[in-house]
């Protein structure tokens, strides 16, 4: 009896926080859903009318739509590939005791502290710029034609920038996993005649599987919504070559002032994110139990 009272009291005490969070989530989602069925343009806000599924049809038939979804997937997978592989390698590297280990580790982690637009601007103007970027200098030093990164490889350039930002996160998580690897297991494998590469494949990788899962899940959530890096570098161009779904929605809302269309895009993005999450959890979620 006392337990049941405590439980209902606990529910009562929890309620305000949960209700607040629910409102926080439901109201914007509901409003987006509502707007997505309206003809609502900021250039002419007075004349809004019911649109039915027109906004969805309009967004879906936009020639940029499929390209943006493809770009979103390429961006997410590209960054995941670079950060997981690079993260494992860097983690193994800085796991070894070296002189100045503390400083090295802080330096490795530091890109994570740089805000995305700042990082993207630095890459755009100081590293990838075709006339005074570092890459251009390197190309010239070897007597080659400098690459105009954002014109020639726009999506790859964005992947590079975003990967640079997320590499520290992956490294950090994977490093902690690596540090919890039992040294005696490694020695046992050494006695069993496993060379370094085999020890990595049969012991280190399985040991890190859970950490890799965490990195993939968390990064996917954030990478589906990459936006600032595109805004300050390519503006989604040339053409739609570096437009992802988030940026397409931004374009509808802020460049075309089409609130209804942008809201419909937002709902589509939510559905897509859930589909991705569903498959992701099925594919890698078993590592988490």
């Amino acid at each position, binding site marked *: 009896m006392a337990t049941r009272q405590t439980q209902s009291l606990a529910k009562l005490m929890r309620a305000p926080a949960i209700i607040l969070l629910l409102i926080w989530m439901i109201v914007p989602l509901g409003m987006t859903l509502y707007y997505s069925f309206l003809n609502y343009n900021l250039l002419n806000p007075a004349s809004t009318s019911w649109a039915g599924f027109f906004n969805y049809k309009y967004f879906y038939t936009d020639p940029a739509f499929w390209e943006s979804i493809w770009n979103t997937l390429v961006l997410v997978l590209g960054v995941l590939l670079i950060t997981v592989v690079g993260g494992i390698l860097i983690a193994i590297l800085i796991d070894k005791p070296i002189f100045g280990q503390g400083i090295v580790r802080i330096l490795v982690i530091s890109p994570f502290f740089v805000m995305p637009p700042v990082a993207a601007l630095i890459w755009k103007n100081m590293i990838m710029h075709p006339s005074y970027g570092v890459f251009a200098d390197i190309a010239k030093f070897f007597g080659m034609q400098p690459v105009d990164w954002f014109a020639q490889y726009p999506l790859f350039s964005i992947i590079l920038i975003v990967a640079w930002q997320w590499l520290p996160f992956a490294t950090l998580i994977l490093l902690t996993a690596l540090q919890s690897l*039992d040294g*005696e*297991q490694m*020695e*046992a*494998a*050494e*006695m*069993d*005649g*496993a*060379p370094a590469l*085999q020890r990595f494949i*049969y*012991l280190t990788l*399985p*040991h890190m*599987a859970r950490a890799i899962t965490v990195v993939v899940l968390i990064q996917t959530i954030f990478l589906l919504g990459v936006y600032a890096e595109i805004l300050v570098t390519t503006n989604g161009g040339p053409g739609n070559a570096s437009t992802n779904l988030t940026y397409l929605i931004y374009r509808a809302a802020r460049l075309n002032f089409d609130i209804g269309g942008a809201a419909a895009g937002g709902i589509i993005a939510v559905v897509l994110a859930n589909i991705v999450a569903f498959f992701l959890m099925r594919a890698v979620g078993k590592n988490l139990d």
Partner: protein
Amino acid sequence: MGSITLKNVRKAFGDVEVIPGVDLNINEGEFVVFVGPSGCGKSTLLRLIAGLEDVTSGTIEIDGSDVTDAGPAKRGLAMVFQSYALYPHMSVKKNIAFPLKMAKMPEAEQEKRVAHAAKILNLDSYLERKPGQLSGGQRQRVAIGRAIVREPAAFLFDEPLSNLDAALRVNMRVEISELHNNLKTTMIYVTHDQVEAMTMADKIVVLRAGHVEQVGSPMELYAKPANKFVAGFIGSPNMNFIEGEGAAKHGAHTIGVRPEHWSLSTSEGEFPGTVGVAEHLGSDTFLHIDLDNGTHVIARAEGEFAVHHGDRIFLTPQEGRIYKFGKDGLAA
């Protein structure tokens, strides 16, 4: 196959010299136990033999060939670790087969050897389980299984029983001895427990601070300890040491008498004392006694011995069972 020779093996970590120089011969098929208090360098010595640590100077030979600079895999030895070091994400079967897989042995042969090892070690019904689903004793057996499938030149055991409870430890002790009798392979076994050393070994190597104090069969060490350290370390409970006048009467700086070598009397004897705690085990009674000369000794009486806390008691060492030591601690 399986003789190991250490020649003047030295090991230092930076400035700290852990093993100042050890010469040792291990014959083929011998069960050798390295025993000593913690920090005496016994595990380091084992790891040097395994190749997990590099020697600072000196040479290690296995079957007559110099393996000082060879990697652990090249030495043909198998090791059982204190933590068992099983691969947690592999089934028992895959754990045992791992060294064979690394040696690129054909699948069929792997299956055969794993099945054989599983039969010897009673692991048949656990082959598909993960190490996390096994008890301590079963994990221990998997670790041994992983060692025996390779048919190594010698087995190295690094305190393999210290994580098991007392009853299981006694069982595994017998199982490992049995295994040695069946396989007849050289085994080197590190422990701090002198009971394990006495019960299992063909040859005991007593170590202290990296020095070999004495090498010999268990009974040799028991009957003829080379010095006070070995005398005190081997035997349970420990040997009693008496210095001063009592020892001078026997013509030594220190005399040692094992608890089981006292004649007890309530009326007369050489060393009078007062009974403290009496531990009644049924088969034996261990008496903690404060002698009048200030020394604390332990005496064993067979069966029941009816004395109580505070009673007077007289102890006399049995004839020919007195160990005499000089001022330098060496047996005189």
